[in-house]
């Protein structure tokens, strides 16, 4: 009886999403233990209120960026320019909506502003993809260029100022509610659903894995590796653009210098936490979403436990170190030797 139970348990723990989910539940449990009203939700003014909703709402931009980053990392790449793209998209949207103080006037119609912001973000992503796939630069360097120049471009658009947005309809994106839930949740969920279907219902997921595991072999097998890589970066840029819109709408302003600061690191962390191999190939979209939620819950926990928020960075760094080591085959082998050594040989069977 207990044997089958244990083997079931180990089987369950071997599942890719087991550890990320366990971490998330642990964090939620810690939050609940220290703050009894953590799980409490109530219906007020026609929408849901509560800590969980708050975490989901705040995690939405990170979820979007993590989804894009997952595809890029799965193709053996990395995109460290997402923070800069967030700033650019926010700046474009804010500039096009304009700084008119009355809440109902915008310089250009809002749909146009949103499309322009997303278009610029898409172009940024395409640029990264072309540098990586066409010119053959290392992904980290190719995206470094946009990371350096991007903040400058964002400041150029905002003229070095923080543009405050007064146009009320724009606030709906990052602060509005639909069916009682934050609207940003629906955007993140829609992107996730579309991507998930595309990856599981078409051959896209297979192609991406093939390119990530061995680009040359994938090309020989007839996968359009180059186009796929460009598309992955373009999608990542688009996701960063959407995140930029959500963030700027939520804080009602665009700051070329600080919007999306360190977002690339959080996104990479979320993707790694979710079990996507940084070496490319194996990837998990659900894992990345869980990873993003873990980061946001961790941040929430740090704030609500009264721990100084400064410790946040240290905790994140330690988490990255641990996850990284757990992913390393060398480290696993070494730990395996350490664990096996004290046990007598007979009992292993």
């Amino acid at each position: 009886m207990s044997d089958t139970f244990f083997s079931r348990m180990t089987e369950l723990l071997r599942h890719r999403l087991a550890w990320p989910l366990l971490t998330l539940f642990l964090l939620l449990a810690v939050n609940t233990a220290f703050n009894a009203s953590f799980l409490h939700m109530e219906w007020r003014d026609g929408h849901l209120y509560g800590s969980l909703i708050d975490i989901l709402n705040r995690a939405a931009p990170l979820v979007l960026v993590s989804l894009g980053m997952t595809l890029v990392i799965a193709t053996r790449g990395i995109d460290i320019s997402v923070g800069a793209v967030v700033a650019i998209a926010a700046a474009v949207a804010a500039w096009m909506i304009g700084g008119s103080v009355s809440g109902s006037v915008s310089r250009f119609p809002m749909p146009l502003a949103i499309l322009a912001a997303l278009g610029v973000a898409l172009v940024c992503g395409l640029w990264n993809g072309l540098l990586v796939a066409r010119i053959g630069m290392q992904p980290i360097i190719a995206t470094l260029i946009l990371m350096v120049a991007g903040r400058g471009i964002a400041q150029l658009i905002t003229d070095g100022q923080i543009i405050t947005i007064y146009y009320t309809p724009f606030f709906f994106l990052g602060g509005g509610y639909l069916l009682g839930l934050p609207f940003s949740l629906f955007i993140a969920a829609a992107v996730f659903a579309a991507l998930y279907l595309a990856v599981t219902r078409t051959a896209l997921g297979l192609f991406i894995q093939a390119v990530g595991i061995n680009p040359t072999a994938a090309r020989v097998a007839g996968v359009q590796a180059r186009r796929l890589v460009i598309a992955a970066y373009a999608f990542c840029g688009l996701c960063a653009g959407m995140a930029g819109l959500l963030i700027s709408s939520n804080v009602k302003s665009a700051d070329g210098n600080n919007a999306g600061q360190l977002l690339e690191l959080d996104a990479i962390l979320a993707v790694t936490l979710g079990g996507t191999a940084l070496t490319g190939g194996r990837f998990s979209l659900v894992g990345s979403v869980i990873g993003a939620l873990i980061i946001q819950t961790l941040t929430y926990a740090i704030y609500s436990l009264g721990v100084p928020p400064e410790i946040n960075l240290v905790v994140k760094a330690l988490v990255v170190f641990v996850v990284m080591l757990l992913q390393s085959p060398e480290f696993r082998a070494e730990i395996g030797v350490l664990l096996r050594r004290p046990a007598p040989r007979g009992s292993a069977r």
Partner: protein
Amino acid sequence: MSATVAKTVAARLGLNPKYLPLAATISLFVAMAIVGSVLYPGFFSAQVFLNLLIDNAFLIIVAVGMTFVILSGGIDLSVGSVIALTTMVSAALVEHRGWSPAVVIPLVLFMGAAFGAFMGFLIERFRLQPFIVTLAGMFLARGLCYLISVDSISIASDSYSTLAQWRLPLWEGASLSLGALIAIVVLLAAVFIAHHTPFGRAVYAVGGNEQSAVLMGLPVRATLVGVYTLSGFCSALAGVVFTFYMLSGYGLHAVGMELDAIAAVVIGGTLLTGGVGYVAGTLVGVLMLGIIQTLISFDGSLSSWWTRIVVGALLFVFCLLQRLLTSRRPPSS
């Protein structure tokens, strides 16, 4: 196509193609200096050029360490935050604990080297990607800064301000600061290490091809750890110079410095794939970044963010040039 064009151009000029990026940087630097001298009165003076060294002393030191890391085929993203941590620890120990700078400076240098060695150990021992390890190191060092204090700590210690104000008079109206002097010494030492020691040769060999380096019997593991230790040490030294420059410790000091350092190394002609490059080129790379800033500040009408855009554009051009020079087959195959 274009790769061969670049190579034939280089061959016509009697130049080894691998010097081309460096030659391009030097000519661009000279061109910018000439343009600046023609356009702006007062630009062509010894002190303006010496100021390039003084204002970028810490960047030179960091970029030298980064050069070794990139030559070995790795990357170190933690340098900026190690600088911040160094300023913070120095300021906290000197101001709040009343320690003497003679104790504090060696201590922070050791701390930086140990931090680098730790990351190097992880990279080498567990085959982790340098990028992600140093990224975590970057988080860690910045986080540690905030644990010491969220606010800036200014240094009022007499010995620090004396050191900060010390100038080496060269001739009439021209002088060098202590930081610039340290930077020059570091640069000369680095040139010696890179080209005249077994360690330097091993760095080039590991960056060229790690497998071959192992087969040649070179101490690859020790070299990898050594490279990150050196980079950590250089960052801490840059942090000390930065403390002289700013006379304060702050967790937000040197944000994005790692990008400037990488840009300087690339513009200085070191190949990002490792194995090819010169420490002296890095100096030119830093001076290039410096002169862009000087030109923009002399102009006065251009805003500061143009610096970032120009640096990004330069980075792009030089990466492109590198690709053209290193691609052995046409990219369309």
